[in-house]
């Protein structure tokens, strides 16, 4: 996504611009949200108003999405927001994790409060979904609380569920193919439970531990454990309470934690700490609660902050680019953004736990 330079507030806008202007450093940039301009996006917006035919591979969805769009014109660009996931038959209730399948371009979203996985296209139209059941400690199955999701190169959906001690591997219809567990961590019982998920370019699966264990686990595409690393703690280079993980185009891993000194930390694949940034402090580029992370194809890091109601963008170097969003219910505003996902360079998806919806926007 290209950075848009904005000087002053827009004069022709329907909503308050959800942006901050970050000056100084010779690079006056402001990430102001959307810049629409491609025929594809315009066509998608128009198409979003049309009823959809059901997708045969999943539980069919005839939902007509209730979407609202706003367009903001600034001095430099046109910005559009697409609010999705409202008014559908299976309502979004406290959604958390989200990902975009590189293979199909579909959005896969953890509808946590409704115990479901939902599928959408890149225009935000429902494509189907299915319930997710968790395997409880006593061996019984129960309605799950899917939290983190990922889609592998074969199109299988991987789910970390709050109530399940294993990663569930699902086919396109939501049937569980396999469950695999993390290596036990004696120091932290919850550390053996899976949390955030990511996929590397070679289809290796990356699973972060929950809790204080601060471990990153690796699995082959056929779910064979390849090893793990991570030093539990709060200092730079240490991990604790991992809330998100994303693979960068450089092959590095971007990890966000809820209570470490640096919210965003970049590690080489072998676990070597590269750099970190995003302190728990006041001001731009700092965080209160980093809830989700995604890295775009051009290496831009997006991190949602569920307390500050915004998404912040950084370069891999740690340079702060800008922020998106403010608290609120209108397009471009967030109510507790819980996760982010990117697709290519131009698409960003943000789920809202309290807003019970997700928002799509593309930049140019």
């Amino acid at each position, binding site marked *: 996504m290209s950075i848009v330079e904005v000087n002053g507030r827009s004069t022709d806008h329907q909503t308050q611009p959800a942006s901050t*202007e970050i000056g100084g450093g010779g690079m006056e940039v402001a990430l102001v949200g959307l810049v629409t301009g491609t025929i594809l996006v315009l066509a998608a917006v128009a198409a979003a108003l049309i009823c959809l035919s059901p997708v045969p591979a999943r539980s069919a969805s005839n939902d007509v999405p209730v979407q609202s769009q706003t367009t903001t014109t600034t001095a430099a660009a046109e910005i559009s927001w697409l609010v999705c996931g409202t008014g559908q038959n299976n309502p979004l209730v406290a959604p958390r994790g989200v990902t975009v399948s590189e293979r199909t371009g579909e959005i896969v979203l953890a509808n946590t409060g409704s*115990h479901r996985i939902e599928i959408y296209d890149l225009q935000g139209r429902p494509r189907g979904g299915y319930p997710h059941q968790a395997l409880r400690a006593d061996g019984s199955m129960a309605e799950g609380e899917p939290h983190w999701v990922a889609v592998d190169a074969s199109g299988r959906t991987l789910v970390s569920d709050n109530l399940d001690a294993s990663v569930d591997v699902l086919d396109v219809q939501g049937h569980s193919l396999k469950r695999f567990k993390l290596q036990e961590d004696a120091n932290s019982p919850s550390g053996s*439970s899976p949390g955030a998920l990511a996929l590397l370019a070679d289809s290796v699966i990356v699973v972060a531990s929950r*809790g*204080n264990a601060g471990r990153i686990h690796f699995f082959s595409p056929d779910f064979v454990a390849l090893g793990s690393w991570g030093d539990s703690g709060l200092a730079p280079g240490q991990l604790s309470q991992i809330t998100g993980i994303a693979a960068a185009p450089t092959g590095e891993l971007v990890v966000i934690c809820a209570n470490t000194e640096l919210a965003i930390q970049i590690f080489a694949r072998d676990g070597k700490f590269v750099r970190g940034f995003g302190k728990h402090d006041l001001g731009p580029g700092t965080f209160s609660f980093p809830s989700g992370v995604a890295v775009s194809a051009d290496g831009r890091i997006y991190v949602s902050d569920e307390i500050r109601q915004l998404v912040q963008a950084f370069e891999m170097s740690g340079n702060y680019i800008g922020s998106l969003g403010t*608290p*609120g219910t209108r397009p471009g505003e967030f109510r507790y953004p819980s996760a982010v996902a990117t697709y290519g360079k131009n698409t960003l998806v943000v789920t809202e736990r309290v807003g019970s919806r997700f928002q799509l926007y593309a930049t140019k």
Partner: protein
Amino acid sequence: MKRVISLLAACALLSIALPALAGDYHSGTSLICSDCHVAHFSQSHALSGPIVPFGPAGPYEFLLRNEVNDLCLTCHNGQPFAPDVFGVNGGAARNRLAGGLNAAPGHMANDAGYSADDGHTLWSTATAPGGTFSHATDGLECVDCHSQHGQTPTQYRNLKSSTSPSDKFFGKTVTYAIGVQDLTKDVFERSAASYAEADVDYNEPNTTKSAYGAWCASCHTNFHGSGGDANMGSVSGGDATTATPWLRHPQADVNIGAHASYISSLSQFSNHTNRVKVMDSQGIWTGLAGDNTVTPSCFSCHKSHGNQNSFGLIFMKGTGTVTEEGDGGVYKDLCRQCHVQGG
């Protein structure tokens, strides 16, 4: 305005210079002022250029970023790093001691199995049963019971306490010890930040009172009491020979099995494999091996936050797998933890 600026300045200084302590929880390493508060309800404090204000729903009282319950539940619901206090347990603690809260209609959806009044109901404007307290404007909030900033001296779970005679929490304290038992403290936590049932037990520093029960009575005034309280019948320790020995179930002052006339049996209690939580002045809690000082209190029958049973009651029949709802028992099984049916 000056006071607000001074307050915020002081807050900022504290967060930089010293760790801001709030009991064992919400310490300066986990939270800072700006996590929950904003000075002017704006996103940016730039001296020039666009100021991005927050959305239309605020500003909120006490300079908060957002509405209280939603703000608290951002961390305390389904997150791996903080105790999950709402609905189904999505956190680390197995069998939460306090159980899970529920929400009033029109707010966030309740988790499966939970419904309003299965314990404490966030956003509820109802009057506390047995009492007069209600939060009529915003409904029940986390901060109605818990001190979000902590207090001095620290209280168990940051439960509210006050030195103001007009405050309903005036003089109410619930003390605790961590790691090493101290029978002079009301609660024993076996390790820090313990939230599971097995990690916490209740002492009885005063054998005629329950600090925990007295704290609950701050809002649930007449619901239960100690033996000597007027709402209980004014007879300390209970007495079957009086005309009205008990008016309400005691939450202190009466040991299980101490009064055969009330059909409570220590052996009934101690013979269960699964027992409800009780107070004990000896720190044993089993009723076995001469432990005849076990006393029921509020938490014996109710989960503090709630569960999937009505009123957060714990249906414990005495055997089976223990969950936050009990162990698969029914209502009468709770009574039969201590009482012999038909006796």
